[in-house]
């Protein structure tokens, strides 16, 4: 406790219950990496900081690409980060037989679509403004590495905050996503950014790569989450730990 934790310097001692090591990626401009690391720790895992410029992927069991404005997001959200040396490794690991679980949150989701790990893309919110609110989502697919601790159809409240959060894809892709059950989350009550078919998050076919715009890592600790109480986001992190110890449904 004596030192201020730095970005890229939040790895916890190896006391984690499951022993699972979850990497959290930091790009220049990443903002929510320490929040994601905290969420991993609160769920019982060990957070390992990963630096965008690293050319090797250390020994980790899963990866979170957190939110923020990497490289300022001036060009397109996630456009420049996608080319980080570490991203090549992450793409390979996610596509490998081992199917490394990868969660992209907000800017991380944008990085995943720019890297073609997930289809579609994000454009500016339909109302053109940044929006920060407590958002209700419905869990549409609880079979992924990151959602297995939720009930199918369960409604959860987590934080939404973004500028470029409108999910778009062509109709064919959208139909495919729906048909294959790959829409993982949908906005409930109000669509806060104009996303096609109220899509808040999606998964790849194998269920190891999940991306969503809202922020589960901001809803893991009572007192600091939505309306200062909610902890509905913790399930993402307990899900992946459950997957890793072989206990997924």
């Amino acid at each position, binding site marked *: 406790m004596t030192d201020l934790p730095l970005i890229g310097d939040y790895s916890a001692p190896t006391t984690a219950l499951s022993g699972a090591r979850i990497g959290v990626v930091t790009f220049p401009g990443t903002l929510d990496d320490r929040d994601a690391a905290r969420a991993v720790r609160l769920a019982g895992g060990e957070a390992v900081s990963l630096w965008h410029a690293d050319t090797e992927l250390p020994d980790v069991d899963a990866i979170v690409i957190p939110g923020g404005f990497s*490289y*300022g997001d*001036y*060009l397109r959200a996630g456009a*420049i980060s996608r*080319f980080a040396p570490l991203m090549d490794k992450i793409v390979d690991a996610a596509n490998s037989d081992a199917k490394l679980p990868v969660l992209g949150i907000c800017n991380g989701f944008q990085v995943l679509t720019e890297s073609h790990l997930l289809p579609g893309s994000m454009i500016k919110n339909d109302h053109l403004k940044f929006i920060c609110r407590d958002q209700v989502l419905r869990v549409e697919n609880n079979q992924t590495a990151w959602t297995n601790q939720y009930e199918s159809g369960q409604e959860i409240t987590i934080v939404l905050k973004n500028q470029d959060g409108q999910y778009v894809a062509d109709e064919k892709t959208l139909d495919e996503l729906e048909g294959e059950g790959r829409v993982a989350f949908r906005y409930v009550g109000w669509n806060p950014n104009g996303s096609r078919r109220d899509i808040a998050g999606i998964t790849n076919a194998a269920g190891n790569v999940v991306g969503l715009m809202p922020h589960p890592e901001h809803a893991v600790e009572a007192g600091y989450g939505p309306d200062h109480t909610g902890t509905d986001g913790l399930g993402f992190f307990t899900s992946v730990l459950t997957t890793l110890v072989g206990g997924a449904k």
Partner: protein
Amino acid sequence: MPRIVVDVMPKPEILDPQGKAIVGALPRLGFDAFSGVRQGKRFELKVDGEVTETILQQAREAAETLLSNPVIEDVVNVQVVED
């Protein structure tokens, strides 16, 4: 259908954080031929029918008032494009 293209660029003396971020990224991707990048906006205004001088004049005015912020941007081009 004809369109009027309006190009708006950040003023040369103004810092362009977008261009700066791109110019930093290009060489990492092996694109080493560029010594500077600036990012501006391109608007395409659709016109139903013929582009008269009055309409072009409207586009020029819209470019100066709504489409650009004269404090930090220049309208570098207003031009009719036929498809």
